[in-house]
Each structure stands twice: as C-alpha cells, then as structure tokens.
C-alpha cells in the first residue's frame, strides 16, 4: 500500500497542506490573541482608571463605606476577578473579597512585583508595565492584572483628613485583576476550528487525489498490467482499449503496437516452424520407410527376374512388386505434400487454368465418353492465385469426377460465377487457440462435417464440453445434456484450463459472459456463453456485410458419395477408390483452397452425382 503512487502523492500533499495551514494558523492565532489581549488590557486599564477616579472623591472625604460599595459593585461584573486597593505599606484596605481586607501583601507578590523588582520601588511605570498576565495556580485559567498607582495630589495632602503628607509620591495602588478565561476559550476555539479545517481540507484533498489517481493512473495501469499478463501468457492478440490521450494512453497505444508486431512475427515464425516440422517429419518417415522398402523391392524384383519360367510365382511376385511400388508412391506424395508450402500467387485467369486442367485429363475423359460442359462467366476478373496449385485442384476434381462416372459415360458441368456473400454461414473457424496456444479444434466431433471448436465448461459439481459450430453465423452448437446457463460456470481450454471468458465485457444482447479465443493466423472470435443467445463476433470478418467471391462449381453425373462418407472425404488417406487412389487428392485440394483463403464444399446424392463448389475470395487490387 505504501508503494502506491496514490498514497505517496496523498502523503506528500497532506504534509504540505499541513505545513501551510499550520503556518497560517500560527500567524492568525498569534495576531488574533494579541489583539484580544490588547483589547482586554485596554479595557482593564480603562476600568482601573474609572475605579480610581470614581473613588477619588470618596477617598478625599474618607467615606470608606462608599468606596467599598463602589468596589463591590464593580467586582460583581462578569470577568472581573478582583479589585483591590493597597496602601503604601502593602496592606489591603479595600477588596472585592472581604476576607482579604487587612492582609499584608508581600513585595514579591504578583501585584507588586512590577514596581518592587528593584530595591528602590519605581514611582512611575508605563502602561505596559502596569499589566501582567499570570496564573494564580497552575490549574486555573490565566488572569490579567492591572496595577494603577494612586499618586499624591494637591487635593490629597490639602484634604481635611491630612492623612497624607505632601512628600509622598505614591499613596497606594489600585489592583484590578480580570479573568482571561473567556479570551483563552476564544483562542482555543479558533485553534480548534483551524485544526478541524486543516484535517477536513487534508481529507478532501486526499479524496480528490485518490479519486483522480485511481481514475487516471490506477485503472489504466491495471489494464496495462492485465494486458502484460495476457501477453506473458502468450495471448498476443490481446488489445487494450485506448480511452485517454495522456501519457498512459500513449503507452497503451504503443503497447498495442508492440503486441501487434510481436504477434505478426510469432505468426510467421509459427507458420514456418510448422511447415519445417512437417517437412522434417515427412523426411524422417520417408527415410525410415524407404530403407526397408528397398529390401522388399530389390529382392522381390530380383526374384521376378530370376523366375521368368515360373508363371505362378511370377504372378505372386508381381503383386509384391506392384504393392511396394505403390508404397513408394505414397511416401513420395507425402514428401510432395510436405514440400507444397507457401503458394506462389500471381494474377491469373481462372478460366485458362480450368482449360489447361481439362487439357491434361482430356484423354481419360474422351475414353470414358464424358462430355465437359463449360458455362463461364466471361466478365470475371482475374484472381490472385497460384496457377500451378489451382490447376492441380481442377485436375484432381476432374479425375475424381471421371472416376465417379466410370465407363458408362456422362457429363461434367463446370460453372463459374461471381457472387456476393454474407460472411454468415460461410466462413469457417479452421484454427482456434486458447491464450496458451493450445488448439481448441476437435476433430472427433464434427458439425456438418467440419471439425468443431471444443470448450470445457465447469461448474462446482460437474464438467462437460461444448462443441461450437465452426461456421460463422450457423450456431449448430452442441451443448452438454444438462446444460443450464448460469453465472458461476467456467469456460476453459480443455487442455490447460485457461479461462476463455472475457472479464471486462458481457454479451451486448443478453448480458451473459463472453467466450473468446484466437483464430490463427489472425483474428479473435467471440461468442455468447448462453445456449439461447446467438451473439458472436469475429474481427476477421470485419465490418463488411458482404464479401465478393468467385464460385466454381464442378458437377458430375457419377455414382455420388454416401452420406456417411461425405464428412471424411477431405481427410488425408481417405479413399473410396480402393487400390487405385492414395487418398491424398482431396486433402491436397483442401490444403490448396485453404491456402487461398477459399472454401470448398460438396453436395452429393447417391447415383445422381456430386457437386464440388469452390469459393475463392476476389481481392480488390
């Protein structure tokens, strides 16, 4: 806590405010109390003079009762503690406290000290020296005392009583003491008020600082922190939503830029790494299998040469040689498959490519009495594609169509057309990863023949799997049997149990949690975790509501593909041709179309025919 910027700021600002208010309060209270005391002092002096002059006449007439009465009346006023008159030897002759009358006052007593500090008493003292502030005992409140010497006067020594001789200068002292309790209370109140004011202002300033530090520093820093954690966990597609334009906002922007660059670099690395490892695997397999195959092929072909006179043995040996040669071809196509790396794309005319492909298989087609009907959309623009790879696609499809038709003859229709398609129901999630780069693609459970996206769902009591429809906008998701959408469900990666729910946002339609995963090589897919809700978003699709595609349809009047097999036809080594095919043809096609960001789909009806439809995106150049 003490290491937080907010706390440090509050501490520093608090101390500064404390000093400023403290200094201000000191000056303020000092001047205020001085003013107050001066006022009291002036007041006391005035009072003292008033007493002195109002008793003067009575003194001269020596009317003591009258003087007593005057003093007592004054002494009853609030705030006035004592009014005493001392004679020149220090005896109290009048006092508001009757008990004091007649007592002698020591020269060192508070009221005498001002004049009797030296051995010889002062006869004239200034107003400042007349007053003093003291405490009678440490616990009581302060008291202001004013001594007022009563000087000898012509009227005094000429008075009839002749009490005073002419030589005397000071005849006595009038001592008035006023309690400062009220004043002290006022000063104390001011001190208290200022202290409260200081505390309140520090608190308010602290709250303001805390609030804005939280808003401007804490929150964005926490977002950044969470983002760095995500990146550390391997989610390079994580993006910070940039809200402010201040320094932290700029940092977030530069962070986004960094992760974007990193993600691109990683993607490239990942892609080349994948291809390289596939190549290594194929090479390793090829080498390991080719050596034993050499033994089989050399011995069997050698035996075949040596047993020319034995037709029965020849027949069997021929099978061995033929099958071994077939194995050789499979291994070779495996190596070719691995070698078929990044397509070399250039602007090409798709119709020329189709024509060339037809040219290649022309012999086989005419042999099987197959007619090719072409219906090309002449206005079609050129496409960016790898002509050699794409030709391979059409050759493979034509050969398949010819094989499906067989010897009885038939038709192959090739149609090309341009179409605008909504990405809904068309784009497929081909790769899905959690933030730790585990694949979420489930090849076991397929939805309409496409590998689904598998997500583990956990509650306190049970766990199960959701299989999401890989087709964007189709929503044929498979939920566990007793699935209830509730808030305390966890959606995690089946492999590492990394959370797939977004913390910060909820479904804009129903408010449930959002499941999110990345779709390499680019994009993030988000969808609602609620079974009932169909909200989903894929940044790959972008904001375009319609995308331009070129569709090539190749339909044959052949034997068709059985429904249970249609899901598997694009899998490597799946073949319906038995001995004649390697089962790699359609897998190669799928790979090529996928490389071109295209879509291949198939519709088939037994004994009526099959239609392969290829959709290739038309790039705007």
């Amino acid at each position, binding site marked *: 806590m003490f290491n937080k910027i907010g706390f440090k700021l509050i501490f520093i600002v608090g101390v500064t405010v404390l000093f400023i208010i403290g200094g201000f309060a000191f000056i303020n209270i000092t001047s205020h109390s001085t003013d107050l005391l001066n006022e009291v002092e002036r007041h006391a002096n005035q009072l003292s003079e008033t007493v002195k002059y109002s008793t003067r006449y009575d003194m001269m007439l020596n009317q003591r009762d009258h003087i007593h009465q005057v003093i007592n009346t004054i002494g009853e006023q609030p705030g006035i503690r004592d009014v005493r008159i001392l004679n020149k030897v220090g005896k109290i002759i009048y006092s508001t406290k009757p008990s004091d009358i007649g007592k002698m006052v020591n020269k060192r007593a508070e009221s005498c000290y001002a004049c009797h500090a030296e051995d010889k008493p002062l006869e004239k003292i200034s107003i400042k020296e007349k007053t003093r502030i003291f405490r009678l005992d440490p616990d009581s409140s302060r008291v202001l005392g004013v001594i007022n010497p009563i000087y000898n006067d012509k009227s005094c020594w000429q008075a009839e009583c002749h009490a005073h001789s002419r030589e005397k200068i000071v005849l006595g002292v009038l001592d008035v003491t006023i309690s400062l309790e009220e004043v002290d209370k006022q000063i104390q109140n001011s001190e208290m008020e200022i202290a409260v004011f200081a505390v309140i202002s520090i608190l308010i300033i602290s709250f303001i600082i805390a609030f804005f530090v939280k808003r401007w520093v804490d929150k964005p820093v926490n977002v950044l922190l969470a983002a760095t954690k995500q990146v550390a966990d391997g989610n390079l597609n994580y993006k910070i939503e940039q809200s402010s334009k201040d320094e932290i906002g700029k940092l977030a922007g530069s962070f986004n830029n960094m992760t974007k660059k990193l993600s691109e670099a990683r993607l490239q690395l990942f892609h080349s790494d994948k291809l390289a490892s596939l190549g290594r695997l194929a*090479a390793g397999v*090829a*080498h*390991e*299998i*080719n*050596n*034993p*195959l*050499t*033994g*089989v*092929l*050399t*011995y069997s*072909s*050698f035996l*075949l*040469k*040596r047993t020319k006179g034995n037709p029965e043995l020849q027949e069997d040996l021929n099978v061995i*040689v033929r099958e*071994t*040669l077939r194995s*050789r071809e499979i291994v*070779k196509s495996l*190596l070719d498959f691995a070698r078929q790396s990044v397509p*070399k794309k250039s602007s090409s005319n798709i119709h020329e490519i189709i024509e*060339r492909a037809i*040219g*290649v*298989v022309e*012999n*086989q087609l005419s042999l099987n009495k197959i007619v090719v009907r072409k219906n090309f959309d002449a206005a079609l623009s050129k496409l960016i594609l790898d002509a*050699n790879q794409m*030709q391979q696609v059409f*050759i493979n499809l034509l050969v398949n169509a010819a094989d499906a038709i067989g010897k009885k003859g038939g038709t192959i229709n090739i149609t090309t057309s341009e179409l605008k398609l909504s990405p809904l129901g068309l784009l497929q999630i081909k790769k899905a990863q959690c933030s730790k780069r585990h694949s979420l693609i489930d090849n076991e459970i397929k939805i309409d023949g496409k590998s689904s996206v598998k997500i583990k769902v956990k509650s306190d009591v049970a766990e199960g799997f959701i299989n999401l429809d890989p087709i964007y906008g189709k929503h044929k998701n498979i939920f566990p049997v007793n699935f209830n959408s509730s808030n305390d469900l966890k959606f995690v990666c089946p492999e590492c149990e990394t959370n797939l729910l977004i913390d910060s946002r909820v479904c804009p339609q129903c408010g449930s949690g959002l499941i999110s995963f990345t779709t390499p090589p680019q994009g993030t897919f988000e969808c609602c975790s609620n079974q009932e809700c169909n909200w989903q978003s894929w940044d790959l699709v972008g904001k375009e509501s319609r995308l331009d595609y070129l569709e090539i349809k190749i339909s044959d009047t052949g034997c068709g593909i059985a429904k249970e097999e249609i899901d598997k036809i694009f899998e490597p080594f799946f073949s319906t041709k038995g001995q004649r095919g390697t089962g790699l043809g359609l897998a190669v096609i799928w790979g090529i179309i996928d490389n071109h960001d295209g879509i291949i789909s198939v519709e088939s009806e037994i004994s009526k025919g099959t239609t392969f439809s290829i959709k290739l995106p038309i790039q705007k150049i």
Partner: protein
Amino acid sequence: MKKEIDILAIDDEQVVVNAIVKILGNENFSVDTSTNSSEALAKINSNKYNLIICDIMMPDADGFEILNQVQKSAASIPIIMSSGYSTIENAVRSLYEGAVDFVPKPFTADELISSVKRALKYSELIKLNSEFENQKNLFFVSCPSKYRRLGYSTWSFTERDGTAIIGMTDIFIKSLEQIDEIIFPDGIEEVVQANSCLQIKTSDGLLHDVLSPISGRIVEKNFELIHYKEILEKDPYFKGWVYRIIPTDYVYESKNLISCSSDR
C-alpha cells in the same frame, strides 16, 4: 597388385547391400561391399573399382564426403548416389558434385541395373575420349556452350521468350544400348527438377528414367522422337529436344546446373 573388382556398394543397411550383391552378381558383376564409410574409403584406396554405389545418409559419414574424396583422387571412379531421403536437393547436389546418377530408394532390380550399366558405359566413353585426346569429340559430342546440364545426362537452354527447351546429352544417349522406344509419361504437364520426365526402353529390356534438368510447365512435347529415334543420335542438342517448358524458378534451379562452356 590391386585387386580388380567391378563395383563397390556402400550402404549402412546390410539388407540393401545384400540385395545389390545379389542383383548385380546375377548380371555377372563382381561386387564388393562396405557398411561404413571409413572401411569403404580404405577399400577404395587399396582396390581398383570400376564403379561405386554409395548411400547418402549413413550414421558415421555423409555420402557426399566419399563422393568428394573419390572426385579428388587421381583415378576418378564413377559414383552412383542413392538415398532413402530422396529429395530434389539430394539428387541435384549429387549430380552437381560429380555423381553419374542418383537412384532414389526404394529401387527395383531393373532400375539399379539400368543405372549401373549406363554408368559403366559412361566411364568407358570418357576413358576412350581421354585416350584420344588430340581428336576431341570423337566418341561423343559435348553440349553447346550456352547450355546448362544436370550431371552428365540432360541439358536445358533458355530461349529469349522465357521458355526453355530440355533434352538429353549425347554421352547419355551413347551410354544407352540400342533405343527401342521413347515413352512420354501419360498426361505429363509438368516436369520437376531431378525427377523422371521421360522413359527410354532399350533393346536389353531395361527402362531408363530421364531426369529433368529444371522444373516447369510443359508447353510443347517433341513427339517426333517417338517415330524418328534417329534424331536423338544425329542431333541431340537441337532437333532432339524433348520438352519446351515455362520454367517455374529458373534462376534458383540453374545454380545447380553445370555450364556446358566448361566442357569445350
């Protein structure tokens, strides 16, 4: 006195060595074997061989090392390279570094025999030619200087329009027995460097694979060869072309071809 043996077979797999011995022994060749490279090199130094068949991937040494050692030595013995890791790179490199042929594994008895016979005939021709050094091109015509060749067997020449013609060298044709038939593979549309692009059947019943010097899409085939086989013998470098192709990556692939200007 060095022993005279026809062939030395080097391969770390005993079964492959045994098969070679069986097959070539049946063709009346004397065959010596070795399953590791150091032993093989010792044997090459102490005995006299007419031909070596060498595997590329062996645990103790690379087959290319043996190839280079033999190339450097005075008595240049023709070498056929072979590998289970039959990539284009291995094949092209073998031929570029001086091997007479590359036989990918697994091979049939006939494939081996045809390669061996061609290689022996080739070295015989070379020997004959060097014996009559004053009269060059007596036994075979080397290819024109602007051509580039893959090993000794096939050539390619890039024309101005960007297409390339490919064909067989005279010494390759002469290393074959009597040509019976020239077979263009069914529906061939594309040729790949160091992969078979044509088959030649000879009078001894063997099929010989012709390796394409470069990769590309075929635009024209010289079907005349099927009917007039003599063209090959009479004019192997001009009228005897096999394919006209659009090369896919000529710049890269031609680096592994040998310029014919060095032959004259």
